[in-house]
């Protein structure tokens, strides 16, 4: 276990290695949230609420969605793809740890770092300028915490799968780009799922994407209450377990037909 905690620490050091990256990261988060705030206030115009969400709830939803994204989002797929393309995966495989577990821990380090050092300061900046409505209920914060942990696991699992695909198709850029768009769109980051037409909503229930962003944001903005929260958390947990199966299968196949590129 020590080595995994050490990996989180190393990731922190890596994120801190470039100062400019760090400061611009905070600003980018604030700008993103601000842009969506203006967009939504324009859409709302004089209307009191759309689909049962008031404009303040909507802004809070967006702000929280971005804060959660700071935590669950990572570039593990890109990293794996790059390591495979450059043959660096050879070096990873001579170390006594499970490659995918270590990547997951690296992602977790990155997530924790971004959450506390990008998005919390960013959120503070944003809350000075725009009206946001944070719940005072500690239970809501608790559920939100659990929920973004699940979001992280689901998103990372999808990233791992996308990354491992590079073992089979060698150049993976198209797939990774497609995955990113699909996740941003279908996870409810840009638009709450309840805004989609009914048939699309019921279709999305069969995919894990909405459990990445829509669920934690709804929990936090108290769009889900009571039993709904428990159901949502349970579905998240279920997806975490379900996604382990394809990852394991892909990994075993990948190891069998691995080619180390570039000598």
């Amino acid at each position, binding site marked *: 276990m020590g080595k995994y905690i050490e990996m989180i620490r190393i990731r922190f050091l890596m994120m801190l290695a470039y100062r400019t990256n760090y400061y611009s990261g905070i600003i980018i988060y604030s700008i993103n949230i601000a842009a969506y705030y203006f967009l939504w206030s324009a859409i709302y115009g004089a209307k009191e609420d759309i689909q049962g969400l008031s404009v303040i709830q909507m802004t809070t939803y967006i702000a929280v969605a971005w804060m959660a994204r700071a935590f669950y989002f990572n570039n593990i797929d890109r990293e794996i793809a790059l390591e495979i393309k450059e043959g660096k995966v050879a070096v990873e*495989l*001579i170390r006594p740890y499970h490659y995918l577990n270590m990547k997951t821990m690296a992602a977790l380090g990155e997530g924790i770092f971004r959450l506390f050092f990008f998005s919390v300061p960013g959120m503070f900046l944003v809350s000075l300028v725009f009206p946001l409505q944070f719940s005072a209920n500690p239970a809501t914060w608790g559920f939100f915490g659990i929920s973004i942990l699940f979001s992280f696991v689901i998103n990372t699992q999808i990233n791992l799968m996308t990354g491992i695909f590079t073992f089979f198709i060698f150049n993976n850029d198209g797939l990774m780009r497609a995955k990113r768009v699909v996740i941003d769109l279908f996870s409810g980051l840009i638009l709450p799922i309840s805004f989609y037409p009914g048939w699309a909503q019921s279709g999305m229930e069969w995919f894990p994407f909405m459990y990445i962003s829509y669920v934690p944001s709804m929990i936090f903005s108290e769009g889900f209450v009571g039993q709904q929260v428990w159901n949502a958390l349970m579905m998240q947990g279920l997806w975490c377990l379900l996604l382990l199966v394809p990852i394991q299968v892909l990994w075993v196949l990948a190891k069998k037909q691995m080619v180390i590129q570039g000598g």
Partner: protein
Amino acid sequence: MNSMIHVEDLTKEFKSYSSRSGLKGAFRDLLTRNYKIHRAVDSISLDVKPGEMIGYIGENGAGKSTTIKMLTGILTPTSGDVLINGMNPHKEREKFVKTIGVVFGQRSQLWWDIAVQESFRLLKKVYNVSDEDYNSHMAMVIEALDIAPLLDKPVRKLSLGQRMRCELAAALIHNPPLLFLDEPTIGLDVLVKLKIREFLKELNKQYNTTVMLTTHDLSDIEALCERVVMLDEGKIIYDGSLSQLKTSWGEGKQIQFHFKTPKTRDELIRSTGQQLVVWEPGENENTWTANVTNDEDIISQVIGEVVANHQILDLKILETSTEEIIRNIYEEGIIHG
């Protein structure tokens, strides 16, 4: 069975496709592809004793790196058995890699953006090395490789020679009994090379570390390894001592004469006869090289005859270098070896 590495009939095949030529071919490739099976390593067998330092040589693409990758558990062999330290590398990978150290000369295993000592610290955790072991062992390594001043610098700021010394130290954090070095001296200057060689010798003496070394720099092999294994097109073509290789392949000697006045071939043949010597012109008319068989009597006879009949300024006896021997083998194959 008291061997460190035991390899039997190890084979690795890669499936690769060949592209058809032209635009039409490219469209056909979209539908069906021509696959070719390429045998990178072809049923090799090998036994290495603990404490041995062996050199693994061969042309580019002969299958050296593929072998190393199978022995380190990275690649799964197509067929054959590997038993290292009593373990099967790819089946018990995580347990197995704790007992080996690997340096790939062309890839870094340190983290690019962070200080060297942070990489070491992570590796120490990864290999579960206790503080006492780390301190006593790494103190010696850091001292011998002279990397103490580099430890707080990020890897991206190190020169290649500095980085390679750190790589070597990183591979030794857990003091493994077996060390694989895949072209560790590639692109390094003479001083760094010497330092690394000295260090490896010291390591071998102190801890009885088994070392398997692939390189294109034969002076590395000459300095370190008593045994060489030579690979060609995936097959072992020579496995034995380096001196044996030299005597069976280094057929003749060359004697280079520098004469006071210009000479012609006829003049020289008149004095030495044609049976024992083949004369080759040198850079100018005053220098000639005599190729003779490696036999003391003949050599002294030729020198005596030349010196008796001509005035010379200088004389050199050249032995065929390992480099040349290896080149001959690569070019001709080992048919008569």
